[in-house]
């Protein structure tokens, strides 16, 4: 029986080792959200095209769905870019995208989902690891070995190793099956050309980067399909220490580059949610943002919406919601001009 127990421990250790080695060395186009990679490339491309001081509205998918940069541009007289990406991204990466898109004289409006302010930024989520392995391998490769291993054991399970192995095998046996995923890894220039050709638009899918207009906005989002419960209006409140550090660093960097940074909110679905307790947490949040050296340009209740304005998730407004939300952001921007 003692031998049995020893063998069990050895087997467990061996599996851990194999898992780490597979994640370290096997490269294969596993199932992931490759469209986010295309989305990032296209947003970079759109921002780079603009040579005048511009307004960059940066955030997760709440910006993608809920902001109409065209309307902001018309109302404010400055070019505007919808830099909505994905709420699952690491805050560091999202801010890096904003920083690389900004030029002196620009304004960055950060409309981040509450989770960006609350999560410990030193840990990775499964989504972040899977997508990094799939289309952003360099973000893993840059990490020191100890951190890499920590990330692997923090954010993945053995099924990810199996997926990498089976995909690597599948890629050798049926290369055609993985072509579409590999296409999304094309150089930025190629992705921009595909976008300009218009041939890659796919109206049947919502989540297609090539459906964006030249401001980074989505087209029509008709209907209200969200039945999830809204998040608490008391979120965000205190900013998590690691998030605060990342945001402070970003604001300082932008200030040094003469880029103004302002904060707003992602929309709140208020049906069935107690909406009485937002003021106290907002004041805590505002004071944290003050400490960072930026300002919050809108009141939280300006982005309280009823269910009929949400498209397919608690952060995703439909066209009607987007119109109202954008108007409110324009009002806020006018106030700080």
């Amino acid at each position, binding site marked *: 029986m003692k031998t049995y*127990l020893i063998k*069990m421990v050895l087997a*467990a250790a061996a599996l851990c080792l194999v898992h780490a080695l597979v994640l370290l060395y096997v490269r294969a186009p596993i199932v992931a959200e490759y469209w986010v990679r295309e989305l990032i490339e296209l947003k970079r491309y759109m921002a780079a095209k603009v040579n005048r001081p511009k307004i960059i509205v940066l955030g997760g998918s709440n910006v993608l769905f809920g902001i109409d940069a065209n309307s902001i541009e018309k109302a404010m007289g400055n070019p505007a870019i919808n830099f909505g990406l994905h709420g699952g991204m690491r805050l560091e990466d999202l801010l890096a995208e904003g920083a690389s898109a900004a030029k002196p004289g620009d304004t960055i409006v950060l409309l981040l989902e509450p989770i960006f302010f609350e999560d410990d930024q030193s840990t990775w989520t499964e989504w972040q690891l899977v997508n990094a392995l799939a289309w952003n391998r360099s973000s893993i490769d840059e990490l020191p070995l100890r951190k890499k291993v920590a990330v692997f054991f923090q954010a993945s399970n053995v099924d990810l190793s199996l997926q990498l192995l089976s995909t690597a095998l599948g890629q050798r046996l049926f290369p055609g099956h993985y072509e579409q995923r590999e296409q999304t890894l094309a150089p930025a220039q190629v992705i921009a050309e595909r976008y300009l050709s218009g041939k890659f638009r796919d109206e049947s899918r919502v989540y297609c980067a090539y459906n964006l207009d030249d401001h980074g906005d989505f087209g029509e989002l008709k209907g209200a399909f969200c*039945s*999830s419960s809204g998040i608490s209006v008391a979120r965000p409140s205190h900013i998590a220490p690691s998030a605060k550090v990342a945001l402070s660093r970003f604001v300082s960097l932008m200030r040094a580059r003469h880029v103004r940074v302002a904060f707003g909110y992602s929309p709140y679905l208020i049906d069935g949610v107690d909406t009485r307790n937002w003021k106290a947490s907002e004041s805590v949040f505002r004071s944290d943002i003050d400490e960072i050296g930026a300002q919050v340009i809108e009141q939280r209740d300006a982005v309280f919406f009823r269910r009929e304005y949400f498209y*397919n998730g608690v952060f995703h407004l439909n066209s009607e919601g987007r119109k109202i939300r954008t108007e409110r952001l324009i009002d806020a921007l006018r106030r700080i001009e």
Partner: protein
Amino acid sequence: MLFNSLPFLLFFLPGAFAGFYLCARLFGKLAIGWLVGVSLFFYGWWNPAYLILLCSSIVFNYGCGLLILRPTDVPRESFRQGLLVLGVGCNLLLLGYYKYLFPLLHGFEHFGFHLVRENASVVLPLGISFFTFTQIGYLVDCKAGMASGRRFIDYVLFVTFFPHLIAGPILHQREMLPQFSREETYHIKAANLAVGVSIFIVGLAKKVLVADSFAVHANALFTHSTAVHSINPPLIVAWLGSMSFAFQLYFDFSGYSDMAVGLARMFNVRFPANFDSPYRSTSIIEYWQRFHMTLTRFLNLYLYNPIALWITRRNAGKSAAGSKGTKTASGFASMVIFPTFFTMFLAGIWHGAGLQFIIFGVLHGIYLSINRTWRQLFQRKGQPEATGLSLWFETAWKISLTCLAVLIADIFFRAQSVADGFSILRSMFLLNGGSLPGNITRFQAAFAPAMDFPFLRTRALISLMVALPFVWTMPNVLQLFSAWEPTFSTPRSASPIPLKWRPTAGWAVFCGFLVVVAVLEIIKSGHASPFLYFQF
């Protein structure tokens, strides 16, 4: 602290184990004190304030037990009876206060009576239903002469021993404490350790890898029901979601029970069986003999039997007809149906404070009554038994019918309200206005994050297709480890697949892999998901 949490797995369990055997080596049977200490720490981890409640309850019940057990001629029978009533009454009052008072008072708000502040409530202490029931059983056993007076420390260990403290099994004193009187309990036994660790790992995997996966699909249905939105779940979502919950419950409770058995075994202690493949039952009566077995035993011993006995005596005393027992319709109704119904009604209430739990209990009461009536009317001894294919069909039909009945009741176990439960039921049986395919796309788009993408719906379907044959054919822990007598009882039947655990390299590798996969899953999810019978 949860069995599937990292602090438990990485620190508490190794510490408790090593400390126990170290204390045993140094101080012999005083190591019981160590187990009591770590068990109280285990309980207090959740909320140290409730340790006072647990300790007060233990002191009170121990005191009552001592008084009931006093072997003198002074305390008369009526005095002991009175003490028992007082003890049981106080336990029920405690349970009632924490579990039912505020939901009940809030219930009056529907009739316009605002008796408490809008959000007034009280936090339900962890495991209160279980440690209260354990101690009620102890008091009744004291009165019946089936429990012996023990040292206070022994009694505390009996109530708080951490493998059963939070969610059972509900034990008798005579089952556990004699095991701590044996000398060999205080020495590490490699065989018990290997068996205990292996059973624990199987349970952990069931909970973390299977039950929690089903939870995703079940939650998609049950947390987004009519209360939030006016969309009725479409047929396929209602079936997939409710079946997912049935399997979540199955693997969650099975996993918990295995872990409890495995943990106890690591300390050279055996528990009674609490779970024996209930979805293989061919009747509801059998289902309750296989599911939450120690709760069924408790309800039978301390509720059903006394009621049935009281009615029998009353009927016998009343008339000659009464002495015919269950042979007459009225006798059968009063001596079988009424106690069954009443017991299951209370079992429903025990499961939670809400009308939906009463419906859950009443449904099982109805099922059991029908089952008993059927047996009384149609099952005759000496009937030729079906064989071959007809036996297979008969068994399949009985199992399917039992599972369907359980599935329907389980909807009310999980639904947030009675309205939600009925809404799901209507959808399952196409009574919601015929939203068969029309709503699916709309509902699918709406159900974030679980069911809104087709591949997840497909995953739910595939999981169910794998789980069904698994629970019907694969051996459970009682069968898998039968050679090592994991519990007091033997499994009710043999498994169709006669797989047996042995201390071989293959099983060592399998269990080693399983624990890594389960632990990585816990780390990845960032938290340990509570058991369904947690905070009960």
